[in-house]
């Protein structure tokens, strides 16, 4: 692997090393200074809940209760670190793996599984949570995010004079997504419109089976240079550093200084999805190496060293995750499929002849079985 390739760890901002020791970095320190032990405990708690929920969903899929699950195992620091830097006026555009970020936006995690159980294509109310729906077509949402940011600017929510009210967009996508035309067009539109948007690339080193070297020959953060957009490369398993750089980037965007690109260098510890089998394309040794860099463990070590992770807190979190697991199982299993006719709802906002006539036909067709039944 060449030193400057997309899988090198060159130039990564780091504030917490692999052993959980704080690294001094005067440039980024100011953006982490507010992280009290309370805040760090919150981060640890959110990361732990994310992981527990992820495990529960994986197991529900194995039991046939979900059609698919997309694990975020290993990416908790990238997601919680950035998600906790998001504020009320901001708006988040996830890809489809950002369950940790969803948690920071107060999405009820079990509720998110309607999508994965095959009950609907969306799940939550995006507007209520300032958290857009998952988008499965790689990169497509990066343009929506950019347009949304342009509209925020237009609405006077950027550089308004009262920084507390300013907002920005943060848009998540993966290393693979950086190859899509749409993502590059998003960089063009964001740049020429100086849109208040942070592009947050989670480089988890794989697009399904393909290593990031199939998408780029230089670190992905560098992509921003081509569009005149400032960028940061951060250790994606270091929740403190991720939080700090995201803080900075969002402030930059909210202040009207335009887009930023962050590359969080991390590792997808699970297979791509429950349909995938990572052993076909990567080694146990590689996986093991990254297990050593587990983002939750790292923060735990840090808090432990500070004596800031008391047993009661751990126990409370354990109880919380257990309760969540139970509620998740029960919720998922309780769902009935909505009435078949709802399949025709919300195709259009106003009635459409074709849909209406097909709905009516289908209704009659279903009725005919009932009628037959009643005559039998």
């Amino acid at each position: 692997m060449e030193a400057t390739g997309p899988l090198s760890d060159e130039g990564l901002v780091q504030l917490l090393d692999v052993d959980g020791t704080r690294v001094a970095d005067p440039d980024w320190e100011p953006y982490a200074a507010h992280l009290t032990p309370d805040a760090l405990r919150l981060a640890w708690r959110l990361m732990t809940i994310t992981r527990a929920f992820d495990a529960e969903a994986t197991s529900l899929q194995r039991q046939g209760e979900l059609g698919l699950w997309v694990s975020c195992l290993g990416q908790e620091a990238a997601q919680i670190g950035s998600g906790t830097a998001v504020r009320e006026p901001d708006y988040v555009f996830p890809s489809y793996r950002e369950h940790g970020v969803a948690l920071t936006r107060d999405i009820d995690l079990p509720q998110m599984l309607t999508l994965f159980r095959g009950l609907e294509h969306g799940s939550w109310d995006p507007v209520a949570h300032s958290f857009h729906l998952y988008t499965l077509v790689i990169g497509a949402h990066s343009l929506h995010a950019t347009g949304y940011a342009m509209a925020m600017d237009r609405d006077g929510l950027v550089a308004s004079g009262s920084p507390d009210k300013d907002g920005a967009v943060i848009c998540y996508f993966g290393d693979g997504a950086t190859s899509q035309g749409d993502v590059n067009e998003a960089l063009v539109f964001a740049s020429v419109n100086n849109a208040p948007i942070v592009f947050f690339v989670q480089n988890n080193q794989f697009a399904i089976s393909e290593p990031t070297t199939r998408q780029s020959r230089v670190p992905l953060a560098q992509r921003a240079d081509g569009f005149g957009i400032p960028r940061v490369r951060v250790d994606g398993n270091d929740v403190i550093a991720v939080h700090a750089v995201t803080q900075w980037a969002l402030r930059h965007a909210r202040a009207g200084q335009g887009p930023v690109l962050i590359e969080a260098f991390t590792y997808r510890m699970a297979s791509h999805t429950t349909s995938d089998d990572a052993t076909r394309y990567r080694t146990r040794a590689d996986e093991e190496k990254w297990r050593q860099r587990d983002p939750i463990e790292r923060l735990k070590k840090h808090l432990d060293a500070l004596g800031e992770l008391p047993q009661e807190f751990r126990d409370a979190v354990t109880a919380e995750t257990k309760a969540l697991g139970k509620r998740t199982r029960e919720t998922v299993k309780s769902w009935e499929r909505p009435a078949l006719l709802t399949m025709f709802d919300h195709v259009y906002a106003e009635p459409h002849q074709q849909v209406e006539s097909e709905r009516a036909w289908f209704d009659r067709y279903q009725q005919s079985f009932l009628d037959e039944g009643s005559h039998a």
Partner: protein
Amino acid sequence: MTDTHHRAPAVTERESAVKTMTMAGAINAGLRAAMERDPKVLLMGEDIGQLGGVFRVTDGLHKDFGGDRVMDTPLAESGIVGTAIGMAMRGYTSVIEIQFDGFIFPAFNQITTQLAKMHYRSGGRLTLPLVIRVPFAGGIGAVEHHSESIEALFAHTAGLRICSPATPQDAFDMIQQSIASPDPVMFLEPKARYWDKGDVDTDAVRTRLDAAAATADIGRARVARPGTDVTVIAYGPTVRTALQAADVASGEGTSVEVVDLRSVSPLDIPTVVRSAKRTGRVVVVHEAPTAHGVGAELAARIGEEAFFHLKAPVLRVGGFHTPYPAAKFEHDYLPSLDRVLDAVDRVMTH
């Protein structure tokens, strides 16, 4: 209101609202009216600002509304539609101009997988009231990719509405109603008809601009000329040809009813079927290749719903299964008056 004795009599008032306009001018006026009505209506596209668009349809709007509302975008159609979707999520209704039909394809993914499906995906929580204006179809002697008829490629996808005006009046009304509709609308402008003139009543549409009325209106066909022997169905650029054919045929003793479809999604099947049942003979005319074109769906639906009324097979007159040919061939590639009359003759033999 207070000064009632100064009000002109109603009939004069209505008359005063009728102006002669080209179709391009009517669209321009319609855009202006929509922008005046709602500050959240924006125009986006390539060269629509100072230039006024390559067909000058947005002429003067940049000057009057400024670059923030009439935005020259980067040269990237996917980017235009994609960012407009994002802006729609904050309540902006973008009216996009795709410079030519043949350049809509880079945006196909955004239109098909995102724009069309977002309302459904969100369980009705998000609406995307976008309008995509496309100067479409041929007949202007252009180079490759400038004469495409794209309607069938979008009509198969649920979530989009597709309409096409054939007269300045419809152009004026329907562009405003498309903007008022909460669903995404593809507004196909028959570019060869841009400079055709007609009377436009600029008042009539005003009361039909609420979401429900607007959406219903742009989905409705119109009998452009009544007749009894043959129904000729056309839309956009071919309506004029159909009317000419009706004229000629009437001289030869055949009474042709012309249905101007106006809407491709939805198809106004009740109007079409009513006419088909009455005449028993149908010819569909569009510029797009007949194979897998809108005429196929019409033929299938008419077959399903008027089977026992039909005296002859539904015939289609349209483009061929070739790329749109070089300009010197287009006169013969396109459904000409002669070819429509030939089809009318053929259905009349039964």
